[in-house]
């Protein structure tokens, strides 16, 4: 998985997923917190599934406790997909 997973791609995919979960497209950004986006724990489980299916990166419930913003998730996916 060393090819072509860029931060920009992952960020775009994560942001798109969050919008489908109901987050306000105008508020969604790299620095946005889950509270700001009104994203709940089940949304994050679903986001983890998207990431696992599409980037083969597993995000555990323990990981989730440290992922407080969109950017945190993007960084973890890019790091683990590398």
């Amino acid at each position, binding site marked *: 998985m060393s090819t072509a997973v860029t931060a920009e791609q992952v960020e775009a995919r994560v942001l798109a997923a969050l919008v489908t979960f109901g987050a306000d497209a105008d508020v969604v950004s790299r620095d946005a917190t889950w509270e700001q986006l009104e994203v709940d724990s*089940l949304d994050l*489980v*679903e986001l983890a*599934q998207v990431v696992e299916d599409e980037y083969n990166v597993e995000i555990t419930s323990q990981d989730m406790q440290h992922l407080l913003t969109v950017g945190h998730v993007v960084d973890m996916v890019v790091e683990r997909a590398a």
Partner: protein
Amino acid sequence: MVTREGCAIVTGGSRGIGAATARALAADGWPVAIVYRADADAAQATCDAIAAAGGRAWPIQADVSDATAADAIFEAAEAELGPALVLVNNAGVRADGLAPQLSDDDWATVIDTNLTAAFRLTRRALKPMLRARFGRIVNVASIVGLQANPGQSNYAAAKAGLVGMTKTVAAEVARRNITVNAVAPGFIATDMTEGLLEAMAERIPVRRAGTPEEVAACIRFLVSDEASYVTGATLVVDGGLTA
């Protein structure tokens, strides 16, 4: 009738309540994956009966107590029938004995098959259901999970566990249009209760054993769109035995 693109998975589907449930869901239009452990002929016969009635069914051999079974079952079902939107956890075993004499193996076998396997299948099922924003999970518990039945402490623990799991998972996923319910059959005339029924009949208010079809009808309802506001419930189907 079902208009969704997806399938139902019924474990323990070759005989008894599972086979009746598979037939009932197929009659509602669900393509049904019939999971069986050992009786290939019975599973095929159920599939054939469904096909003869105009439905679609596919047999899948698996031992649900195997930790890797859930992925294999879902991959096989989804390859043949489409995304799984309905799961009926029906597979169950008994290994009876009074507690002082119940072996570790008899305890573990019943917990593994009747409770742990149902959890693993539920966890796997929620993936496509969350994506689809729709799902129906029905766990086949038992009145033994609600009321004492000497000689079945392992079975009772597993079935009570199913009831508890049903409630909590239901609450976790309710906002995704996924319902999780249980049915708690009483004494139903199946291979598993053969020989026990005559002694029980006079204790049952309706004075007879239930049929697999009578349990399947309740499961069919819980799977239907009409049951969209029923979740976390345990529907007792026991002819009044625990009333």
